[in-house]
């Protein structure tokens, strides 16, 4: 399996400064319009591509920046300071890049694709869920129908985030028409190889810019684009941990921005009445502690996952304890997101409740509620409920 190598990342601090710059100069400026119109953040991604960030996780020897999980998570967090939807899309794209880099490099098609990803800064969407499987990523109905080195495929996907804006699409399907639902493979398609027929829109409370509509995908492409590695391996080793770590990181970015607003509010109060600290400063202290906890949880997961990638024992990723902890990171971070943004609103009061205020947290709180519903916390908790009967935390 893929093992992590230590590459030179001395320029990361400079890169982060550049991300902050596109954040304040471009991404933040369009965030409100993206949210109001529920449109893809084109300006954000033009800026992100200008920094070559689409291939940031690609190893240096393949032309990328060779950033590690911690650094990718940090970029997600910084992007979220300026626009939650942009950060969410970037994270979802990066999950697909990680799956390709970790699991597909034995296949010529994917090796060549990575060169294209680097030179053209392409955006990858994914279709892993399917109508009828009840959200179970490890089960597919649709199948690769092969004939003379080509295949066709039709998938009813309840959600494909930014499907219409993406250059490429990674989807899961049964290996062939005779394979059981659990025998899945990953397939990478380029835009001209698939059609999307819309079956549902995306007029939602939050994360409106992710444009996560439902589609029927019909595809026709070369069998060389099917990665033979069992999808269950890709899910346990990469997709599951990488997703929950980068999501939690970007949610911490939303929290950080909300707390910044709260701090501005408290500072103004202190300025007005320097002799007596405002009551809201206690709440600010409390909510900052919650953010510290959230960040510590993320750091612990990043550390554990990174060490596992360095050791490279593929079986370790299916350990029930590891799965449970990664699930808990998602559950607790998404709950803390609502809690922290809510408390920041209590501090700022009505000015955070207004859409037209400098201290508005309306988009933040609407985005916040999406985190626990998308890949529903209850379903994850149900999964953990079976795992914890077997798994004991180390004594």
């Amino acid at each position, binding site marked *: 399996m893929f093992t992590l190598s230590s590459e030179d990342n001395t320029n990361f601090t400079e890169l982060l400064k550049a991300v902050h710059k596109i954040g304040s100069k471009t991404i933040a400026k369009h965030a409100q319009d993206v949210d109001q119109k529920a449109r893809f953040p084109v300006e954000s991604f033009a800026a992100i591509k200008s920094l070559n960030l689409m291939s940031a996780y690609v190893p240096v020897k393949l032309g990328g920046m060779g950033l590690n999980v911690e650094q990718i998570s940090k970029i997600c967090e910084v992007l979220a300071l300026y626009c939650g939807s942009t950060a969410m899309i970037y994270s979802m794209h990066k999950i697909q890049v990680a799956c390709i880099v970790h699991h597909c490099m034995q296949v010529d098609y994917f090796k060549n694709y990575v060169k294209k990803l680097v030179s053209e800064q392409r955006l990858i969407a994914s279709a892993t869920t399917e109508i009828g499987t009840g959200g179970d990523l490890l089960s597919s109905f649709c199948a690769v129908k092969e004939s003379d080195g080509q295949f066709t495929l039709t998938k009813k996907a309840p959600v494909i985030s930014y499907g219409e804006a993406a250059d490429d699409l990674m989807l899961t399907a049964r290996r062939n028409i005779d394979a059981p639902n659990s025998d899945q493979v990953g397939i990478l398609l380029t835009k001209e190889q698939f059609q999307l027929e819309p079956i549902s829109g995306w007029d939602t409370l939050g994360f409106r810019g992710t444009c996560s509509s439902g589609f029927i995908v019909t595809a026709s492409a070369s069998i060389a684009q099917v990665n033979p590695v069992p999808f269950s391996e890709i899910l346990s080793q990469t997709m599951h941990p990488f997703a929950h770590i980068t999501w939690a990181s970007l949610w911490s970015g939303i929290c950080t921005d909300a707390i910044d607003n709260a701090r501005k509010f408290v500072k103004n109060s202190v300025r007005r009445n320097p002799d007596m600290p405002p009551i809201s400063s206690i709440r600010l202290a409390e909510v900052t502690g919650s953010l510290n906890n959230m960040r510590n949880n993320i750091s612990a997961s990043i550390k554990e996952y990174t060490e596992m990638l360095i050791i490279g024992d593929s*079986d370790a990723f299916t350990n029930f304890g590891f799965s449970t902890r990664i699930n808990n990171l998602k559950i607790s971070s998404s709950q803390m997101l609502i809690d922290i943004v809510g408390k920041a609103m209590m501090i700022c009061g009505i000015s955070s409740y207004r859409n037209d205020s400098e201290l508005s947290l309306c988009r933040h709180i609407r985005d916040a509620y999406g985190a626990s519903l998308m890949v529903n916390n209850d379903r994850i908790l149900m999964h953990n409920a079976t795992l914890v009967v077997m798994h004991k935390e180390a004594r």
Partner: protein
Amino acid sequence: MHIDKIRVILSAHGRLTQPVDKLDDNSDLYQAGLTSLATVGLMLALEDEFDIEFPDSVLSRKTFGSIETIADTVEDLLD
């Protein structure tokens, strides 16, 4: 010997979508319909039958992947 007992337990607790006697020792049990919920029942029954306790180090998807991997794990725990 253990394999036969494991097959009986798997048949009672695995909730598989196909009969256990149609499976080879190395057939993929997840492809045969083993779910995480059924794994709990399977594990508890194995612990009772063999009077063993599965330590965290062996609690992974791979351990319950086939009759053979279950038998190997049980064998190790009995030693």
